Structure formats: structure tokens, C-alpha cells
């Protein structure tokens, strides 16, 4: 009985890693599309985002089944409930990558090369997502804590980009729409950073049983 349960937990773990990897890919592709202006990459992000949605439903039903059939306690219960919370955040990351990709199609081939900060911000968020998934894989609390501190950096980037875009609009009012699109992209990256932070917090919860907000 127990060994079957362990096996199911292992499968859940694998699925979570796969979903995390898909999120990483989605955001990496969106960023690449942003810097190269390659619209085919943006389309790919859409398909990955759909896969992520499907994965969320699969993992959710898997978790429910485990909860109902095995009635787990303590650590196992924490792992499953944390997984349930994390997939929501991962799904949001996928959606927001898709949103970024969608905005890129409106940019009409303009790339974000002029705003170097957005690229840096994207790199920072990607590493946050990667680290949060890594923290889950390795059950590494320290890594999860670094992810949480990195969120401030992303917020800082957002403020900086915002003021530079304001300056851009003031100098070239005809570039207003482009600037606003870039602002939206930056906002989405900022949100992705928040979701990565959430994932990291749930990783800490699943290992220690303590959640920051409780």
C-alpha cells in the first residue's frame, strides 16, 4: 500500500518538474521573441501555454485522487497541498508568458533592444523561475529564500523601466503606444517574479511546514 503511494508521489514529483520546465521554456521563448522580434517563437509560447494548462488540470486531478484515496498526513499532505498551490502559480506564469508573446506581435517587429533594462529584467525573472523550480527539485530551502529576496530586484527593475519609459514618452510622444506596450511587458515580468516568489514560499512550506503568510 505504502509503496504504491510512494510511487504515486514520485509521479506527482516528476509531473511538477515537467510543468516547471515547461514554464521555464515558455518564459525563455517569450524573452527570446522579445529580443529578436521572431514572431514564430511567440506562437510557440502559445502552444506551450496550452500544454501548461492541460498539465495543471492533470496534476490537479492527480492530487485530488491522492488526497481522497490515500488520505495522506504530515509531510505527504504538505507536499500534495503545496503542489496544488504551486500549479496555480505555474499556470499563471505560463499565461503571462503567453500575454508577453501576444504583445510582441503588436510591436510590429520592433525589438526591445533600445531598452536594455527589460532584457536584464527578463534574465532576472527567468533565473528566479529556474531557481524556484530548482528549489522544488532539490528541496533546497536556502535557494528558495534567495528567490524570495530576488523579487525586490525585479521590482526595482520595473520602477527603473517605468521612469525611463515616461522619459521616452515625454521626448517622443508619437512613440507612446510602443512605450505602453513595453510597460505592459515589464509588468508581466514583474508578475512572473511574484509567482516565482509564491512557488518558493510553497517549497519552504512543503519542507518545513511553515508558510510565510500563516
Amino acid at each position, binding site marked *: 500500500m505504502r509503496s504504491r503511494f510512494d510511487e504515486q508521489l514520485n509521479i506527482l514529483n516528476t509531473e511538477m*518538474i515537467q510543468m516547471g*520546465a*515547461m514554464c521555464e521554456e515558455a518564459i525563455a521563448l517569450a524573452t527570446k521573441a522579445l529580443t529578436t522580434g521572431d514572431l514564430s517563437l511567440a506562437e510557440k509560447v502559445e502552444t506551450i501555454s496550452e500544454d501548461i494548462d492541460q498539465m495543471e488540470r492533470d496534476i490537479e486531478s492527480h492530487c485530488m485522487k491522492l488526497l481522497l484515496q490515500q488520505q495522506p498526513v504530515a509531510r505527504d499532505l504538505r507536499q500534495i497541498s503545496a503542489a496544488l498551490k504551486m500549479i496555480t502559480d505555474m499556470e499563471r506564469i505560463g499565461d503571462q508568458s503567453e500575454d508577453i508573446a501576444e504583445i510582441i506581435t503588436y510591436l510590429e517587429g520592433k525589438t526591445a533592444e533600445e531598452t536594455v533594462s527589460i532584457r536584464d529584467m527578463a534574465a532576472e525573472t527567468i533565473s528566479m523561475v529556474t531557481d524556484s523550480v530548482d528549489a522544488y*527539485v532539490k528541496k533546497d530551502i536556502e535557494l528558495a529564500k534567495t528567490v524570495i529576496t530576488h523579487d525586490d530586484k525585479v521590482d526595482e527593475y520595473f520602477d527603473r523601466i517605468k521612469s525611463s519609459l515616461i522619459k521616452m514618452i515625454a521626448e517622443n510622444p508619437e512613440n507612446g503606444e510602443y512605450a505602453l506596450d513595453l510597460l505592459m511587458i515589464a509588468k508581466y515580468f514583474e508578475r512572473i517574479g511574484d509567482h516565482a516568489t509564491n512557488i518558493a514560499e510553497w517549497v519552504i512550506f512543503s519542507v518545513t511546514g511553515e508558510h510565510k503568510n500563516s
Partner: protein
Amino acid sequence: MTSKIFRSIFATSIVVLMATLVIITSFLYDYFTDIQINQIKDELSIASVGTEQSGEEYLENLKSDNFRLTWVASDGTVLFDSQADKTAMDNHLDREEITEAFETGKGSSSRHSATLTEKTLYEAVLLSDGTVLRISVNRASGFVLLLGMMTPVIIVVIIAVIISAVLAHKMSKRIIEPLNKLDLDDPIENDAYEEIAPLLSRIHRQNMKIERKAAELNRRKDEFDLITKNMREGLVLLDKNRNILTINSAAMTIFGTDEKCTGNEFLTINRRHDITSAIEKALTSGHAEIRTKLGIREYQFDISRIETDGETVGAVVLAFDITEQADAERLRREFTANVSHELKTPLQTITGSAELIENGLVKQEDMSRFVGHIREEATRLVTLVDDIIRLSQLDEQNELQKENISLYDIANEACGVLRDSADKKDITLSVSGDSGNVCGVKQLLFEVIYNLCDNSIKYTPDGGKVEINVSETEKEVTLTVSDNGIGIATEHHARIFERFYRVDKSHSKKSGGTGLGLSIVKHAVQYHGGKIALQSEIGNGTIVTVVIPKI
């Protein structure tokens, strides 16, 4: 084990007990039957004497509940019966014992009653007057007897069962105890009863066999570990569920993990989509190959399925570091592209000018300017081809004539050549330091200093200064060329020694040069077994340090 032994002992004793009971009962039954028959025989002989003397009267007196007397005439009619009405009785001539008595003088038989619950014993004797006197007695059959004895038998059986259960339990415990206490690591040394001695020696032999096998396995594992550990290529063995069976140290470095990952899924050490999908592909179609970057290094992954008897048992992932190879490939590609570009630009100017002259579109007074263009570009081409030839010579590593020379002297010589261009930009050019004697190729070392100074002059604004310093230790000579020019940004440091690499991407003719100067410097320094270092920041000038060993 205990319960099995207990059960068999118990069952044996129960069976023995039951068998004994049955055998004894049947013996006793037969014995009592014999006694009874003897009794009625005695009775009959007394009765027959009485009947012969006083006839029916005697028989009437003899009536008893214990037995039944029947007197039968020679024609079979019943003359008297002690328990029934003689008139109602059939002719008895066909009865077995009576027929026998008529024939032999004595007869006996026994018959079961219709219900089988009773058995009747008959004895008959022929009297002197030709009649037959029969005595019979009823007795319960063996079955009824047994039924009657049930209660005591059951009590006896219950007691016996309890006793045998207790004894069987104790016995099985006594058999088992030494077995459980056996020291299986050293079976021969055990002090147990001799019945299990063959078992012990077998265990001993088995132990030896296992030990040998284990040693053999360990040896093979050590061999395998040693081989994989010293492999430069990363090796990961996966089972069919993608769990890591073995990972060598090179692979651990590549994937940034440690031994603890063994047994986990491959996903836990790397979840890159291209790699995992390549593994999937290998597991389904047999083989997969991808090139990808992990961090700053580039790897080629060869993944093959492992099969036994047509069944997939896992996959082996081999990772090769192809960073250098990929870099070399990129360099070669860039070199070809650059060479063509650099060769084409002057040729285009030459053909363009020549065409204009050919078609008479150039006025006589402009002619010398156009011809001058053609000559200039042709000279550029010649310099470029010269540089390429020199570089390829260096690539070939031909053995060149080495001599003892002073770097200080060469530096002075180079400065002499460059003095004019330095003066044009009002740049101070100075040489200082030791004489710096090394054994080297004069032409190449001249090239090194010339190119470094030339670059410094080119990229230093008017009124700047370029200093050459030669210092000497016992083992090596250090040459530094420093300027206070525009400097080089850090991101270009690694690449400026590549062929045709330019910080200024526009390949502007403004500064002139072929883009091969620093490449020649690098090769020339390498030819002498030296090292070259760059220290520069935007706006803060550049210091190039060349260290050349004396031997």
C-alpha cells in the same frame, strides 16, 4: 516452521491414537464373541442332556431371558420355543445351523438382524432321538457396542489430544530452537544436533560461493568506476523509467550535481526540454543526438537505447564537451567571411575606378586622383595578403631561424619605423628598460612590437604618449606597451586577438590596418612560448604585457 512441525507431530499422535483404539476394540469384540459362543455351547450341552431325559417339560423349566431354546423335530417343525409360540413358527429345516446339525451332529451360525443393530449367535446339536436342539443368544453388533462406548472413548480422546498437543508443542519448540540460534555466517562452528549437519555444510558451501561472487562483482564495479571516473566525457546510465543508475564525475560536473542524484529521475538533474525529449526519442527509436549549450559551454549529447532480448532496459547518455571545437568552427566561418569581405572591398574600389576611366568618364585633371585610389587600394590588398601569408606561416609552425637578440634593440628599431606616424599625431614615443636578451626570431618579435605600437598610436588621440618598457628577470623578459588612448571595453578583451575582429564594427578605413595585426602578435608570442595579457578600460588607455621565456 514451528506450527508446521507442531501440526505434523500432533497429527501423527492423533492418528496413532485412533488406530490403536479401533484395533483394540475389534480385538476385544472378537474375543468376547468367542467367550459368548463357548458359554452357549456349554448351556446347550447341559440342555441337550436334560431334554433327552425329560423332554419338553425340562425345557419349560429352563426358560430364561438370557437365551432362547428351540427344539426342532427331524422334519423341521418346531416342537418347542422358549420365547415364541411354536405353532406360529415356520419350518426350520432350511436354517443353516439346523441343516448343519442334521448332517454333522453340530451346527453353528450367526445372523444380523434386519436393522443391523443386533447380531444373533446360533448353536445347534443333534439329539439321540433325531431331533435338534438350538440355542441362540442376541448381542449388540460391534457398531452398537462402539456407540455405547462413545462417551468414555470421547473423554479418552480429548485427554489424549490435549496431552499430545502439549507434547507436540514442546517438541517442536525443542527442534526449532537450535535451528533459530544457528550462526549462519559460520555454519560449521555450530553445536547443533547431527541431523542438520548436512544442511550446515551446504550453507557453508553456499556462503563461500556468495563471497566469491560478491568479490567478483566488486572487482567489476571497481573496474567500471575507475574507467568512468577517468573519462573526460560525461556518462549517465538510465533505466527505462529514466531513473539514474550510474553517473560519472564528468557528468556530475556537466549537470552540476553530486552522487546523491543516483536513483532519482533524470529530470531532477536536468529538465531542459531539448535534452529530455532527446532521451524520449532515444528510448523509442534507439538513438538520439543533440548539441546544446549548458551554461557557457557547449555539449554534444549522444543518447542510445540499451536493449536485452529486444526489450528496452534503459538508455546511456554520453556528453562530449565540444566548446573548443564549436569555437574553432565559428572562428573558421568568421575568418572565411571576413577574408572575403576584406579582399572584396578594395577590389570593388579598384574595379569601380577602372571602369570610370575605361568609359572616359574621368576628366583628365581627376585622373591622377583616381589612379592614386587604385594604387592605394592595391597596396592595401598587398598588405592584407602579406599578413594572411605571415599568419598561415605561423599556423604551419615552420621552424624559423632563431638567434640571440635584444628586445630593447628591436623596440628601438620599431620606434624608428613608426616615428613619422607618431610625429604626425604629436604622440611621444619612448623606449626604456633593460636590454632584454632572448633567443627568438627577429622578424616575428619585430612584428610583435611594431603591431602593438602601431595600434597604440592609431588609437591614441593627438598629443598622447606611447611607452615601451623592457624588463628582464633570470627566466623571462617582460615587454609592456602602454598608452593613454581610448582604451578597449572589457567585453572585447577576449576577442581582439581573433582574426579580423574589430572593436569598431564598421570596418572603417579611417584607422587603416587589416584586422590581422593583433592576431599576428598572438601567434608570434605563442611561437616563442610566451604569454600575452591585456589591461584596459574605456578612456583609460591600454597596457599590453608580453612575457617571453628566455629559453
